[in-house]
């Protein structure tokens, strides 16, 4: 008997109503026939859908669109064909006529939609060009040895010479953390000198072999019986690479080009373009500025000066150890106004200045957590409950900041009101007689003291002339032998890209919190050190690695894996990434604007609205989408979304409609079918960096049909606005996947 997909026993089986011999017989039948298997699946799906539905509250009447969607869905399943659904064909014909009429109409100069057809004013063109500068892959044109006034941030020569007079380390004490067990060797005498810098604006071009990462990760998959997810598609990859490296989604054209490219090396070329772009420096300056001083730093902190300092540092590809050294030891004026007063301007000072309150407690906490990856701030008030750290750990580090001083410089304005100019950050003079101890309360109520003490126990017992405690701390933190330092940044960078640190949480490294792949974090750190702390190289290694290339779709063996990197995780975009992506995808800030400056101002206005609602001070790693109602309201109904899906000149939608209309006129687009498909493709490429699938194309047709039927002025571009709206509000857009 030939297996019949309409056999009622299949339905009964699918609903779990069979048992015993009959069930076995049916199972055999299913195994033998793919059509029967398909039929069973179908029934199960429908039954589940119905059961789920009946559980929910009674739905209101279905809209016309839903009915069409349901019927199309059911028909499609029934037919297993890849043609348009039957209803779609009838609809499509009439819709395409309407769409076609629309596109043809567009060339008519009297069409109210188009402002200028035909000849474009060259001046207007450059206006349109300028904002595009923001898009990627623009080479920086600054010469390698710039005469940038910010040369003041170069290492101070006088400091360099005094550093060399301090004895080079012999064999420093082993880096154990047991307090007071190590002999109190003089910290200053046993540390390496401060890290050197490098001004380097030449294009970064190094692609290394990263099989060492892949092997270490693969080994643990084998050990844990995990099969990794498949490799992500090109569209998925370019989107995540853009988001992670430069902070926004790729422009539609870039996504299309990448997907289409047959170049075997397109991936490495993409990564190199991204790390060499201007948006790279902005993105990372933003990330580190948030980490260092938060989104709302206190009064008199010049966040922009710090960001400029960071941008210059990332543009130079300054070695990470040098950057951290500069942040920890920064001296000078916090704003550019200091120059007039004869104090060297140094934007980096804003980091320490933001954390000097309460006896430098925040400075201690931020420095150890961000640069060494350890939660020492817990031991401010008590010994750590889980590891060997005691209060000495916190206060010993705090003691290195005790000579840090700030002086506020003000003047009075014309009305006599006091006006802040800048803060001067310096270290008080120290000589042999200086007291170096800090006092702290133990839980017993007794007061204890400690001199400046590093986490491995080495101390600064004696003061001397010209001793600079922050420089000693800086040299300790950035010492090439300081594994905490190198592993912290390697781990953090890994976590940024692959979604979770090898040690998780990122800033809680230690025996009590072992790495999921200890060899990986060690090797990553070692190689990073060998590269002379080259951030672009570290980024490139991770971006070219196998784990970073995997899809976020899980399989049965890895759907619960969150520590072996066997699939890309779903990552939330930061508010900045989200906003910048909206702008890149939709050109919302250019809508109705007259020129580049106006567009930039609009961008700032929109961004302020945005960060009020989306700003979140704690840079918390969130696995879930921590959306709020006001955010959803802003996205659904706010003016930024209205501009994003606007048909007005300047918007992405308008631009594409315009171009396609011209292509119809010049016969580059040969049919209305093509025009309609092209516009849909553009929207999908812009929002989610891929082409729509068959189902999505059908859905789009349904929306077009609905709009044609109900829209008073029969403006079918409205349908595309609605599609774009749905795309920009979808989780696929807002999540990095």
């Amino acid at each position, binding site marked *: 008997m030939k297996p019949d997909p309409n056999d009622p026993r299949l*339905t009964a089986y699918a*609903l779990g109503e069979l048992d015993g011999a009959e069930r076995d017989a049916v199972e055999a039948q299913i195994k033998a026939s793919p059509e029967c298997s398909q039929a069973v699946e179908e029934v199960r799906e429908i039954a589940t859908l119905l059961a789920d539905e009946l559980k929910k509250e009674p739905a209101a009447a279905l809209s016309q669109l839903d009915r069409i969607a349901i019927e199309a869905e*059911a028909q499609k399943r029934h037919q297993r064909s890849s043609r348009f659904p039957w209803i779609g064909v009838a609809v499509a014909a009439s819709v395409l006529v309407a769409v076609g009429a629309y596109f043809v109409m567009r060339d008519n100069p009297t069409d109210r939609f188009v402002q200028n057809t035909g000849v474009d004013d060259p001046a207007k063109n450059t206006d349109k060009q300028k904002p595009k500068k923001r898009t990627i892959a623009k080479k920086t044109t600054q010469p390698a040895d710039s005469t940038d006034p910010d040369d003041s941030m170069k290492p101070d020569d006088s400091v360099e010479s005094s550093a060399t007079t301090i004895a080079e380390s012999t064999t420093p004490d082993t880096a154990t953390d047991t307090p007071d067990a190590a002999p109190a060797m003089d910290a200053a005498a046993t540390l390496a000198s401060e890290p050197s810098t490098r001004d380097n604006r030449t294009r970064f071009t190094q692609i290394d072999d990263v099989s060492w990462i892949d092997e270490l990760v693969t080994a643990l998959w084998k050990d844990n019986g995990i099969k990794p997810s498949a490799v992500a598609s090109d569209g998925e990859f370019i989107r995540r690479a853009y988001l992670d490296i430069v902070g926004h989604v790729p422009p539609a054209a870039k996504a299309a080009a990448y997907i289409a490219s047959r170049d075997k090396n397109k991936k490495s070329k993409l990564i190199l373009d991204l790390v060499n772009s201007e948006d790279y420096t902005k993105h990372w300056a933003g990330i580190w500025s948030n980490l260092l001083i938060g989104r709302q730093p206190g009064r008199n902190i010049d966040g922009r000066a710090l960001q400029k300092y960071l941008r210059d540092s990332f543009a130079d590809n300054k070695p990470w150890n040098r950057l951290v050294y500069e942040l920890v030891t920064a001296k000078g004026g916090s704003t550019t106004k200091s120059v007039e007063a004869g104090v060297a301007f140094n934007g980096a000072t804003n980091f320490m200045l933001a954390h000097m309150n309460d006896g430098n407690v925040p400075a201690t906490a931020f420095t150890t957590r961000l640069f060494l990856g350890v939660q020492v701030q817990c031991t401010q008030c008590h010994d750590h409950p889980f590891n060997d750290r005691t209060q000495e750990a916190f206060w010993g580090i705090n003691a290195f900041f005790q000579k840090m001083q700030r002086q506020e410089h003000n003047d009075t304005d014309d009305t006599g009101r006091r006006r802040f100019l800048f803060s001067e950050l310096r270290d008080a003079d120290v000589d042999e007689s200086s007291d170096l101890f800090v006092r702290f309360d133990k839980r017993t109520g007794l007061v204890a003291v400690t001199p400046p003490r590093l986490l491995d126990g080495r101390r600064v017992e004696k003061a001397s002339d010209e001793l600079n405690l922050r420089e000693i701390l800086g040299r300790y933190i950035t010492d090439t032998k300081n594994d905490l330092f190198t592993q912290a940044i390697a781990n953090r960078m890994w976590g940024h890209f692959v979604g979770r640190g090898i040690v998780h949480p990122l800033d809680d490294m230690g025996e009590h919190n072992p790495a999921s792949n200890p060899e990986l974090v060690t090797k990553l750190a070692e190689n990073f050190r060998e590269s002379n702390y080259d951030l672009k190289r570290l980024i490139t290694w991770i971006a070219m690695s196998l784990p970073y290339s995997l899809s976020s779709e899980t399989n049965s063996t890895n759907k619960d894996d969150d520590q072996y990197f066997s699939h890309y995780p779903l990552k939330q975009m930061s508010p900045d990434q989200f906003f910048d992506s909206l702008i890149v995808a939709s050109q919302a800030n250019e809508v109705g604007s007259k020129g580049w400056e106006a567009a930039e101002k609009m961008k700032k206005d929109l961004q302020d609205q945005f960060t009020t609602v989306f700003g979140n001070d704690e840079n918390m790693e969130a696995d879930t989408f*921590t959306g709020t109602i006001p955010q959803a309201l802003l996205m659904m109904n706010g003016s930024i979304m209205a501009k994003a899906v606007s048909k007005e000149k300047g918007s992405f939608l308008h631009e594409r409609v315009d171009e396609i209309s011209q292509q119809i006129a010049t016969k580059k687009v040969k049919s209305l079918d093509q025009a309609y498909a092209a516009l849909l493709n553009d929207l999908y490429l812009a929002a989610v960096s891929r082409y729509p699938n068959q189902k999505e194309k059908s859905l789009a047709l349904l929306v077009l049909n609905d709009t044609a039927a109900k829209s008073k002025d029969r403006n079918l571009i409205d349908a595309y606005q609605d599609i774009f709206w749905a795309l920009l509000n979808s989780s696929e857009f807002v999540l990095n996947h």
Partner: protein
Amino acid sequence: MFTTDSTVPAGMTRRHWLQHLAMTSLAIPAMQFTRTLEANASTLKKEGKSCILLWMSGGPATIDIWDLKPGADTGGEFSPIKTAAPGVEISEHMPNVASVMNHLAILRSMSTVEADHTRGTYKMHTGYVPNVTMQHPSLGAVSAYELGPKLQDFELPHFISVSSPGLGAGFLGMAHAPFVVQNPGSPIQNLTPPGGLAGFRMENRLALQKLMDEQFIKDGRGIAAKDHKEVYEKTVRMMNSKRLDAFKLDSEDKKTKERYGENNFGRGCLMARRLVETGVSFVEVGLGGWDTHNQTFTAHKTRLQPELDKGMGSLVADLAERGLLEKTLIVWMGDFGRTPRINQDAGRDHWARSWSAVIGGCGIKGGQAIGKTNEDGTQVTERPLDAPDLMATCYKALGIPIDRQYTTPNGRPYWVVDKDANAQPIAELFS
């Protein structure tokens, strides 16, 4: 499991019948953009407990409002008047509040150490001083977090902040941050789609987005996708909710609006009454401008106390009249108090050593003053109280266990009332 044997029409296989059913009754509930969610009348009424926090930002000079020292050289310009609470006198510029004093208790012995705006605000909202190890959630966030989920079919946010920046979800995360309303009485920002958008278009947008999200979820990539879908569904339910009327003041009569006061604070108090009436768990209403380092008496006399008096007095009276006071806790406080000593600019400066807060409703025994200060108000002489004591009192009144513990994302334990403070609810306030 689902079964349809009894109803299959003759000549049709069950498999086809299921498909037919699916076609007609299934699976993609329309996101109707009309007010079709008819909550039935009884669920529109208040079920659980609520709290209204009147937040006086800047640090109010409580020595001129609740605990006057006439005759002392710190006494200032105002005289005390009798109130509906025997033996309790307050400022002459607060007659409306005086008439409902039987519902309220004054805590005259607040002594909270923190005289800096940021630290004081943080401490009075959370019961903790700022600490680098964690961001503590505020009284509002904790109350909403605990009380909100107990409500059925409640589409509004549980924590709403009116004319106040709304500090306070802390480590609980943005999802528990307050919903902020800046201008009570004006339309809520972004609550409706841009003008001129036809209804069917919003429906199409939402239906499309929902289908996209469902596909993304089916791909099995992670829970963030589901959470995103749920936030949007929550938002659409709110947009469609009949309870949104609580945000509108136009249905109130002119007399009521005048009674509360035609100013931001008055409207905020009126909105707060409407919000707790419909069941919102926590509403913070802000009145700023209390940082009176100079000309403090002028500021109090001409604006601050009259606005406070009308808004607060009407709110308490209105809640009592409507029978809502038993389920609504009222708390009045600021970052700290102000110096008994009057400075050279006829102002008062920051002072946290001895000041007053006010509490009432939700079963609290009103009509009394707890704690005492000395003759010139410079010291607490009886029953010193700190922020944790106030927190413990509030949580007890709201029915939240005061030893409730959460764990922060990085593994630290957190208690809703600071364990190290050995704080207790103020016994005299409970019968």
